């Protein structure tokens, strides 16, 4: 893509965001003036972008009022991220070997496939109630694990199965052992696909963690923050928290894409 075209794209992206914020502000001004309304929706209770921005700034860092200490969004983000990373690492450690096994060996595939096919169709949120009862702690990490592990397994299987036959034949002709074929040919070939699985999985995990934190309570976490603000009728802080969730999810996706491009040059 030419540099000029890229700049143009960026400009359109930026303008669309600014346009959305202006539209949001305009609708709320019209609503508050009594000119615009939608039945069954209390539009007037939605904070304006300016109120949301102020709420975001006001709740970014931990602050105290007398004995009351309110953790900042900053603390909540790190608590949620920590859970996603922990769940993601466990899912990676378990998901990649399972995916390689299932993808490479028909026998292992036949053993695991029925289980994978049934369990992967249970959404992470469906695991929340059972996680509350069976985990003394770490229930939220388990929910993330469920969200991340299946995209990793499925993409690993796909990556392994799409290994170039010529490479496999060449390795065999040169006398490579089975383990050498897996480590030197299959895994490097499947790695871009594994990373795609990780990227998709972390996206699912990030959505799952927020839902899990709303039910599996702990002192910090973005899901918990949003509910708490709702209990206090602080709608601007709720929206600010939701925006932070969206931005962090987007940044996670972009970071892994960039890492993928930087380190897995053979992917292209």
């Amino acid at each position, binding site marked *: 893509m030419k540099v000029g075209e890229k700049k143009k794209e960026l400009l359109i992206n930026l303008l669309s965001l600014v346009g959305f914020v202006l539209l949001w502000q305009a609708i709320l001004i019209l609503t508050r003036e*009594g000119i615009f309304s939608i039945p069954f929706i209390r539009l007037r209770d939605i904070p304006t972008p300016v109120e949301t921005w102020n709420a975001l700034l006001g709740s970014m860092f931990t602050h105290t009022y007398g004995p*009351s*200490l*309110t953790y900042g969004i900053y603390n909540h983000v790190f608590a949620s991220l920590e859970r996603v990373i922990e769940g993601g690492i466990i899912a990676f450690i378990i998901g990649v070997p399972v995916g390689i096994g299932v993808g490479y060996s028909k026998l292992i595939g036949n053993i695991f496939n029925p289980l994978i096919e049934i369990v992967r169709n249970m959404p992470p949120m469906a695991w929340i109630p059972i996680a509350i009862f069976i985990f003394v*702690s770490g229930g939220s990490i388990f929910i993330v694990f469920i969200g991340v592990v299946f995209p990793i397994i499925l993409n690993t299987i796909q990556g392994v199965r799409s290994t170039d036959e010529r490479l496999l034949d060449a390795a065999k002709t040169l006398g490579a052992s089975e383990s050498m074929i897996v480590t030197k040919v299959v895994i490097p070939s499947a790695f871009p696909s594994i990373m795609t699985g990780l990227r998709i999985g972390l996206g699912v995990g990030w959505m799952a963690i927020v839902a899990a934190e709303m039910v599996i309570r*702990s002192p910090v976490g973005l899901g918990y923050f949003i509910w*708490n603000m709702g*209990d*206090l009728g602080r709608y601007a802080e709720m929206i600010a928290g939701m925006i932070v969730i969206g931005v962090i999810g987007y940044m996670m996706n972009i970071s892994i894409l960039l890492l993928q491009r930087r380190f897995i040059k053979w992917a292209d």
Partner: protein
Amino acid sequence: MKNSIKIFSIVIFVIFTIFVAGCLQSKQTPVVSEPINLVKMSGQEMIQKLGTGEISGFIMWEPYPAIAVTKGLGKDLILSGKIWKDHPCCVVAYDQDWYKATNNSDEILKRMALVQLRSVEYINNAKQSDSNDHNELINFTMQFGGMTDPAAANLSLADVEFVYNTNIPDTTTFIRKIQDFGIFVPEKWNQSGYKNASDYANSLVTNKYVDWAINNKDANSSIISLKEPVTVRYGYLINDIHELPFYVGWQKGYYRDVGINISIAEGAPFQNGAFEMQKGFKSNTIDIGSLGIPPVIIHRINSNDFSNDDTRVGVIAGMNNEGSIIVVANNITSLKELSGKTVGFPGPGTIQHVLFLMAADKEGLKVSV
């Protein structure tokens, strides 16, 4: 070039060592001012998690403290009466939209206050173990509180002071506390137009219905009953013994006697007062309900759309004073020992939240929510 790489490596190593040492040090040294972490949960969860050691304590309305204590899972640390003697707690409130839309709302509210008075007098009499009504009251308490153990029912009744009077001075104090703890949204407070806490309390609480009830308490129900019976959609909190007067009035037919049919409001019983205010009163699914005074105070400001006052409620009678308890694991002996630990509570903006902050304030402790 090689030298500069060496120097760079040494600098990185030193920074890394300091960082690791710092981390280890911070783990070893207990931070004195570590806050007590309040975590929102249901009463059932509090009992279960106290039993498994997942939380070190909880602050909750009766009967949950009594159940935890009678099961031997924990012990009372502080009764809310020790934090603030005779503090108001749950109240009877009406929705302003219902009030405006109903022709004889004043007459209904007078009779609601009268039923509250009669129920409270029944409970206070039946609380005595030699009363003929004692067993009936214990049954009501177990049914409403979701209990199976009469000992827990007796214990929970002992901790609650049932009242019908409104209390404007103490409501003013509550408003001041809520201001001090930074719970009001400043812009919303400005929109409300109240000059100060006392101004707000006077706008919120009305004594005239209780005054009428006191003057008519001995009147024959057939004389003061509404000529045309009305149906009131009533909201209340789940298993909250503070609101036992409502259940007693309902079960013993006191409401029916004065021409009021109780219909349980959509969504009731509610998990906490914040939810009752936002999903019940604000959505106009409740005409009259009982809940803690702090959620009323907070949400008539924070959740209100002042253009149509959709969360405006008025308080017509008290329900109870005191009756919340900080229960802790058996090995804990003071509030200070809860620093850095997790304590269950029914949610931000509830009376238990405000009371816990007041208790912590006395001891110079911090509480995170």
